[in-house]
């Protein structure tokens, strides 16, 4: 099997970019949390958490 050359520099750049985008998402989510009721943001968050932590695990 031929080994493809990987552009490490490009890969590192992509990782840096991804970290920035994750931080940006946190900013956007927090802005949203401040605009809606506690019930609204927490029900979205509960959907995510409850999908991973089921009733029988608690």
């Amino acid at each position, binding site marked *: 099997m031929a080994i493809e050359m990987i552009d490490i520099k490009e890969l590192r750049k992509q990782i840096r970019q991804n970290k920035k985008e994750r931080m940006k998402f*946190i900013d956007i989510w927090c802005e949203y949390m401040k605009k809606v009721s506690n019930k609204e943001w927490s029900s979205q968050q509960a959907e995510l958490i409850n999908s991973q932590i089921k009733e029988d695990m608690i």
Partner: protein
Amino acid sequence: MFVLDIEIKKNEIILNEKEINNLDKFVISLIKILEKYTSYVIVSGYLAIFFGRTRATEDVDVIVKKCDLTKFIKEIEKRQYWVVNATDVKGSMCLLEKNLSIRIARKNKFVPNLEIKFAKTEIDKIALKNRIKVIFDKNSLYFSPIELQIAYKIFLGSDKDKEDARHLYNIFSEKIDKKKLENFSKMLKVDKKLSLLWR
């Protein structure tokens, strides 16, 4: 400018109408037992999650005042929980005495777990002494001061920790004591890294 619907008093945070998720339910039920035996403070990732961070966790870190937790361990076992990393009560106490943590989960499950350890470091003691009561509808939990957690998360330094710090700062930026944050950051020698909190 919009702010989160939250009320902050001297040593209290009031957050109403939060939908209680399964992780919250797990923490509330175990803490109700723990607080009968010792004073505690919840630290680290669960704080960020409690205040809205969009992630779950496998463990919830709790620091307790050094004491004999034998009766607590016996009670949780009676209530269908178990100590994941010890075979019996004596073993659990032995871990705690060695300043290691015990992990408590629902019987035959491993996650999520409540990771309990005795207050050992100066940071642990500051968190316990200055704990904040967070009241949410009919429930309440004691959390570490937000300013300390933001600084500590920067100190820990992984991507996840930095994101937690940014989240907490975003949520509490208008309401936290900036001087306190600066002081805790200096204590942990991360004051030059505070810029990662700013947009």
